[in-house]
């Protein structure tokens, strides 16, 4: 473990030499993610999506059909006549918000606990890691289903529920990395020079955590977004009536025979994002830490 993480300068060198040619597997998915973020931020200003508006005269229109006001519904309209594209863009905002905030909370909490466990060792380590083991004994979606059922559907609740199911992953990585770093010579040297625990954690351990934690966060991002959509699909995530992709896909189920696009379009948009994030995460992992395994 120690030797695997030791050659920090060598890794930095190799990433410099790799920079000379463009890495398409990093660039393409990265660009796709940027497009999603930009659309989620400025999209609501471009399309007119009103979550409560209904327009029964133009419901269930297929993609590319012209609406009465002369505009084209690229993705078609849903069961109450709302523009599906606008709905999907509003859904992007929800998904990205949930994904981002969940990872910020889970990342900070998990990293803090992981560093604490790895740095302190002893009973703190034992208790935290036993807790992590017990939690991992639950398939995470099962845990999310249970807790979501307890707290009820809302944006804040879904973020907290998902953060609660994800902290373990960050804690494990942070702990492993802390253990690998804390007995290295430069840490001992700092301690000899009189550095306190807080100084060592901030200046020696946290910098070593940045790359692996960011890689884990990227990989987890896709999983969190799918988990949100899945919970919403089950009726345990975002409340019914919100434009979450999971809710849209669920409501399209009743119209599969007549209006295939209602379930299909949000799913395609969701899948494209998750695949892009997955490729990006894989690539980052290969680059920064081939030893890092994530579940």
């Amino acid at each position, binding site marked *: 473990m120690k030797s695997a993480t030791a050659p920090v300068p060598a890794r930095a060198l190799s990433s410099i030499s790799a920079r000379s040619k463009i890495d398409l597997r990093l660039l393409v998915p990265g660009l796709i993610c940027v497009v999603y973020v930009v659309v989620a931020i400025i999209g609501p200003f471009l399309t007119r999506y009103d979550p409560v508006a209904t327009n029964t005269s133009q419901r269930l229109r297929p993609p590319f059909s012209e609406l009465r006001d002369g505009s084209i519904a690229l993705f078609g309209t849903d069961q109450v006549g709302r523009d599906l594209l606008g709905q999907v863009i509003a859904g992007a905002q929800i998904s990205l918000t949930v994904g981002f905030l969940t990872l910020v909370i889970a990342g900070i909490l998990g990293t803090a606990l992981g560093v604490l466990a790895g740095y302190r060792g002893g009973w703190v380590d034992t208790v935290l890691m*036993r807790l992590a*083991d*017990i939690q991992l*004994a*639950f*398939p*995470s*979606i*099962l845990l999310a*289903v*249970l*807790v979501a*059922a*307890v707290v*009820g559907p809302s944006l804040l609740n879904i973020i907290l529920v998902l953060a609660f199911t994800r902290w373990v992953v960050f804690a494990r990585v942070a702990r492993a990395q802390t253990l690998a770093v804390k007995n290295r010579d430069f840490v001992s040297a700092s301690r000899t020079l009189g550095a306190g625990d807080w100084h060592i954690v901030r200046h020696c351990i946290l910098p070593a955590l940045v790359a692996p934690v960011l890689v884990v966060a990227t990989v987890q991002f*896709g999983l969190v977004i*799918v988990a949100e*959509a*899945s919970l919403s*699909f*089950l*009726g*345990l995530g975002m409340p019914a009536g919100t434009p979450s992709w*999971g809710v849209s*896909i669920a409501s*399209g*189920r009743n119209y*599969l*025979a007549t209006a*295939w696009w209602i*379930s*299909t379009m949000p*799913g395609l948009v*969701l*899948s494209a994002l*998750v*695949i892009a*994030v*997955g*490729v990006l995460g*894989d690539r980052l992992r290969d680059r920064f830490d081939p030893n890092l395994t994530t*579940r």
Partner: protein
Amino acid sequence: MSGYLAHRLLSSFVVILGAATIIFVAIRAVPGDPAIVMLGPSATPEQIAALRSSYGLDQSVFSQYLQFLIRMVTFDFGPSFRLGMPAGQVIANALPATASLAFISLCVALVAGFPLGIVSALRPNGWVDRVVSIFSMTGQALPSFWVGIMLVLIFSRTLRILPSGGAESPGAILMPALTLALPFLSVVVRLVRSGLLEVLGEGYVQTARAKGLKETRVVGRHALRNMLIPVVTIVGLELGGLLGGAVIVETVFAWPGLGRLLIDSIAARDYSVVQACVVVLVLGFVLINLVVDLLYGFLDPRVRVGS
């Protein structure tokens, strides 16, 4: 080995106890009194009180917890509010459906995953490898509830060759099993590929090649066996994900297993069935991990000697 086994059994026990505690606490935190939910808004206070006492809901939380643990050992989870029979019976009725779904998915994933992983590893970065890696990347990323709905759209609504849900007709298990197998299959492909690639670089494989063995024999006898160890471990760990995925897939296809039962029981606040479902699912997960650990010792003699 016996000390190792004892340690594993003890930690399995702690996990199950922890899971049972979490579920006990979680289920009692759900807003909504089951007695009121069950009897409806027109129930009189006397009726509610009578029902609460008959289900033990009027006792202290601690005594409910103790009773819950004691009964859990005998798989007695109390009566189902919703279905009017013992929760253990409800679970027993649903268990075969989930078990068969998970088993068939596992078989599909292994039978398809091993050959795909092997052909990818034999020519790394060849076109087969690239196609397979795109397939496994996609398969792992796609949200399974959406994949399920798309299969229904294609095979039930458009082609009309498979039933969209339920378990009545013989072909009904096909789509749920495929949906559940897809992400698992992708994991198997990636594991087999990377495991085999690693092993193929080892000295004993070079030796086997150097002494003139055919490539099929080198891969089949020397490489594959040694690759099995990490693959078995991670496949075992991922089986838990398969059980979790069953919750979603069963809901999509109205498959009458534990997963759908769990979701329906949560919606109906059917405490005893929810508890029983989760305990059985976690028990299954822990048992699988235990078996995998023992299998690991069987496959790799070093583990037996070392511990």
